[in-house]
């Protein structure tokens, strides 16, 4: 009669199929595992091995130097400065993107003529390839014929043309602006989707309850935005921490290393200076930092999911 009881009527685990299912699962995963070990696992292991040697990119295989590479890097000024530059770039650009993105989403969530067109237009910067975006901004910042110089002089805000990307004081800020312009639409899109999920009755109830615009945003709309925004924050911070392409195209880490982030430093160490050993150890440090970020955010997300 037990057969009639369905799954709940079963007593104890099924005797045989467990092992077969496990075997079959492994077999099915095998092709992917092979590929992953080939393109991720083995290079990672080899990078770890390299990081303990003084190998050059070409020529000598190098000898074992234990933790020398790590000690030199962590104690050296260029790593510390690159870490600070990277953190500054990531924090400022992501914060600005979040604020701009949410503001843009709030605006685009209002009823007005041409809203659909504006929504489509807004995605454009994000849809552009980074290299195109970087080239565009290099033109805007150009010290001789750049649009920014023209605009600012004509408005009377500066007296003479400046080299925005050529001065250590302004280069990083100029980069952050370019990065924001490219990436705030992603945040705006995510926020807009979240805003559209806020039930109309709830905002109407808040109106009747007497909540002003700020309180409505703070108490009624923000709870709906928090989760999706956290995801955007995670993605954008990790990406900003790894930033390479936009900087490489616009400043190559200059002037005077003022825009040299960790990824640029890794590139220079490994390929410009051809020091494969210390380049590998630097790359591992960056990987570790990004992993830490990811783990911290994953924990945050779990906490947020538990709270709601």
């Amino acid at each position: 009669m037990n057969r009639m009881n369905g799954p709940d009527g079963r007593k104890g685990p099924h005797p045989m199929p467990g092992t077969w299912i496990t075997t079959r699962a492994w077999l099915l995963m095998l092709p992917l595992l092979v590929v992953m070990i080939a393109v991720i696992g083995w290079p990672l292991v080899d990078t770890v091995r390299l990081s303990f040697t003084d190998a050059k990119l070409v020529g000598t295989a190098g000898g074992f130097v234990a933790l020398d590479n790590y000690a030199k890097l962590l104690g050296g000024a260029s790593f510390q400065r690159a870490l600070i530059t990277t953190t500054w770039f990531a924090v400022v650009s992501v914060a600005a993107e979040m604020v701009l993105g949410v503001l843009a989403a709030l605006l685009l969530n209002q009823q007005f003529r041409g809203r659909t067109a504006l929504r489509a237009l807004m995605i454009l910067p994000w849809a552009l390839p980074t290299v195109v975006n970087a080239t565009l901004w290099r033109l805007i910042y150009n010290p001789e014929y750049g649009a920014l110089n023209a605009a600012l002089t004509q408005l009377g805000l500066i007296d003479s043309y400046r080299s925005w990307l050529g001065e250590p004081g302004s280069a990083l800020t100029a980069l952050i602006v370019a990065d924001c312009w490219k990436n705030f639409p992603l945040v705006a899109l995510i926020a807009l989707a979240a805003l559209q999920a806020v039930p109309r009755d709830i905002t109407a109830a808040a109106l009747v309850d007497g909540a002003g615009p700020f309180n409505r945003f703070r108490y009624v709309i923000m709870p709906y935005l928090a989760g999706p925004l956290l995801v955007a924050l995670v993605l954008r911070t990790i990406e900003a921490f790894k930033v390479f392409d936009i900087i490489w195209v616009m400043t190559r880490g200059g002037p005077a290393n003022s825009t040299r982030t960790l990824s640029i430093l890794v590139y220079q160490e490994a390929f410009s200076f051809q020091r494969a050993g210390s380049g590998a150890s630097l790359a591992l440090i960056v990987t570790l930092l990004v992993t830490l970020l990811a783990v911290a955010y994953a924990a945050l997300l779990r906490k947020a999911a538990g709270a709601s």
Partner: protein
Amino acid sequence: MSALEIRDIHKRYGEVETLRGIDIALEGGEFLVLLGSSGCGKSTLLNIIAGLAEPSGGDVLIGERSILGLHPKDRDIAMVFQSYALYPNMSVARNIGFGLEMRKVPAAERERAVRDTARLLQIENLLDRKPSQLSGGQRQRVAIGRALVRDPQVFLFDEPLSNLDAKLRMEMRTELKRLHQMLKTTVVYVTHDQIEAMTLATRIAVMRDGRIEQLGTPEEIYDRPATLYVAGFVGSPPMNILDAEVVGNALRLVGSEETLPLPADFTSTAAAGRRVKVGIRPEALRLANTDTPGASVRAQVEVVELTGPELVTTAKLGEQTITACLPPRTRFGAGSQQLFSFDEAVLHLFDPESGRSLRPV
């Protein structure tokens, strides 16, 4: 002095006119139900009173003061939404007290008001919970509590019971009636459920296509429907509507040999030879035998459905169909001929073109 007065309200969305001149005046403590099928404009009217929509013309007054152009929070109204519209991130207590919090009522006073309201609605034990931890009925109570706590001049309810299952809906209906009897506040209540309208209202406004079809007490709406639409909308099963012709002092049913008496009320308006629509409620029909005094018609029974409290019988009167609600113990089979009797006072006559009642005013 009217507690709430609605004067010639119009609402137009582009080419479409959803409200075409609504006039209602309510005394303090009245329970007005706006009744109609979806799209009749009843929710739009409620939103206009609440300040969530602006009318294209007309005026709304609360206590003799025009509230048009005022922010919803300044109108001295509170609203209960169909979806409850509770703030999901806040506790029940904060949900109820949010309106007071936004009006900067001191915390101690607020807490007392929330607690009193919760006691009234028997949800004191739920104050620390989040809306997601509540059942539908409990959420509805919280939503009502949020409106009650502010002690407004007018309560607005937008189909508050339609998301509840049948049993709970009945419980909450009684609960609402109890609250209204106790608090005696002015209520405007939107629903498409005629039972809710009949049981709760002191007055019902039956709406159709942006107009009020009839405004009256539940008894008036049920006993003296002003139009065919009202007659068909209120009552379940709906009123039987039969085509007939006035012949002398009788009504000859179209497509049948049967005749009905012409009620005395209508002799002045229903001239001989005139085509009319005759309405008779299923519950006004009784099973009779040839000795039963009063009017009767003979019909051939088609379908018999026992619902429990009554036997819903569908029968053919020539080409027309008639429904009767009979006592459940009645025993007869489909296909048999039966005699249905009624008082001539229960007949309603309507003009077939305009649909208006022929009852002299």
